[in-house]
């Protein structure tokens, strides 16, 4: 066997090493170090957290490569970075910097409203957001090695992440009860716009065929535990940590809550006296055109 790099096994394997962990959004190397110290399994390097992207308005793009580089140099845990949906060149630049995983993310302003990046052409793995099974499987078919719920980023409101995770769980359940004949399988695959083989694999293993995290609105240890109880393999926390009163305590508490998600005694302990979480916003107050989750379907 020749030496091989960038195989699907290596990409999905990398994602498996993140399971049970918390991946934190950071904008400086100081924040990255704090995240690492607090037990994050990886950090997401950004120029602004989603809550600020929302407030700032304008076009949200990939972070400055020098910021990403300084974050890579400051920690030993993996570093991820976001590129715009469909922006192949941003993804190429991010891969070149030496990032471990790319998030093709709806948090940034989409660059292509028709197509996502052909992720199989890259050496490093991608994570993509999904609201439902069809979106998840289409991203996997494009080469994504990891899926996360979209939720509604930058809101500190977990309701959309819950909706997306439950929707995916429900659709997987429905697949299991699907009549296993050629026509229904082919029709379902057509409906989801994915190859029959990927659908059959999903039915066979009874879950999303790659690691599946929760993201988009997780702001407290209890939010993280809730998403884990719904079947998430781990959580991304965006604005929830560095927009809170006490980032270090929030970071540690969310890591503990993700590990002990089914132990209310521990959840109680880590939730006490944390200070004020990020303020957050009600989904109904966000105009439809400002909803990030509708991007990249």
């Amino acid at each position, binding site marked *: 066997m020749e030496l091989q790099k960038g195989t699907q096994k290596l990409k999905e394997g990398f994602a498996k090493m993140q399971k049970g*962990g918390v991946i934190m959004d950071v904008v400086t190397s100081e924040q990255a170090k704090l995240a690492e110290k607090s037990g994050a399994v990886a950090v997401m390097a950004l120029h602004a957290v989603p809550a600020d992207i929302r407030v700032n308005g304008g076009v949200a793009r990939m972070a400055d490569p020098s910021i990403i580089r300084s974050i890579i140099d400051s920690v030993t845990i993996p570093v991820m970075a976001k590129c715009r949906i469909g922006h192949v060149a941003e993804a190429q630049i991010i891969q070149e910097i030496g990032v*471990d995983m790319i998030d093709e993310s709806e948090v940034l302003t989409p660059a292509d409203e028709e197509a996502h990046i052909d992720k199989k052409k890259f050496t490093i793995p991608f994570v993509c957001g999904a609201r439902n099974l069809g979106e998840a499987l289409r991203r996997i078919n494009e080469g994504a090695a990891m899926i996360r719920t979209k939720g509604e980023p930058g809101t500190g409101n977990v309701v959309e992440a819950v909706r997306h995770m439950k929707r995916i769980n429900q659709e997987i359940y429905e697949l299991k009860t699907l009549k296993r004949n050629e026509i229904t399988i082919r029709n379902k695959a057509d409906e989801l716009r994915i190859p029959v083989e990927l659908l059959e694999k999903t039915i066979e293993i009874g879950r999303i065929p790659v690691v599946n995290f929760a993201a988009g609105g997780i702001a407290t240890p209890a939010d993280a535990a809730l998403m884990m109880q719904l079947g998430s393999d781990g959580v991304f926390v965006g604005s929830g940590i560095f927009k809170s009163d006490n980032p270090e305590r929030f970071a540690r508490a969310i890591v503990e809550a993700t590990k002990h998600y089914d132990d209310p005694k521990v959840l109680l302990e880590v939730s006490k006296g944390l200070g004020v979480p990020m303020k957050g916003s009600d989904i109904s107050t966000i105009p439809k055109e400002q909803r990030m989750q509708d991007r990249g379907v």
Partner: protein
Amino acid sequence: MIIGVVGIQGAVSEHLDMLKKCNVDSLWIRKAEQLCGVSGLIIPGGESTTISKLMRESSLFDSIVDLGKGGMPIYGTCAGLVLLAKQGCENVKKTEPKLFGLMDMKICRNAFGNQKESFEAEIDFEGIGKYPGVFIRAPIIDKTWGNCKPLSFYDGKIVAAKQSNLLATSFHPELTDDIRLHEFFIDMI
């Protein structure tokens, strides 16, 4: 016989699946109390800094050190290899994860570079033969001493070692379909 897989973070279910394929009962270990009745332990890959930190905050860390010293067979993959070592490189010291300090070896974390440098390659494993190595941001063993013996090399670097009841590989057998390394460990019990 039950083999426990330390389930703090990382590729836990993959090890449990491999043990099932080997027809061995297994247990997902999250608390020290679960360790009684287990005849062997696997410490999976994940983030060594995170795993070490989370274990130190429970009594799991000290219990595993005691069991390892007492002769229980323990197998560490990737991050698990890092934790079993007595000494770490500068890269390990930077984040100060506490190591179990059970095996006479010095390791270097993330020795090949970032994910772009992760690779698959066939390796020779002493006692098994050719084996598909899956290396993900993998550590290497810089040197061994005392009773710790290298079992496999890649490109001149030590990627597996054994010291009486302890086994460590810098690659991930749980991500392959090849159960021989898990069988090798089961034979140590």
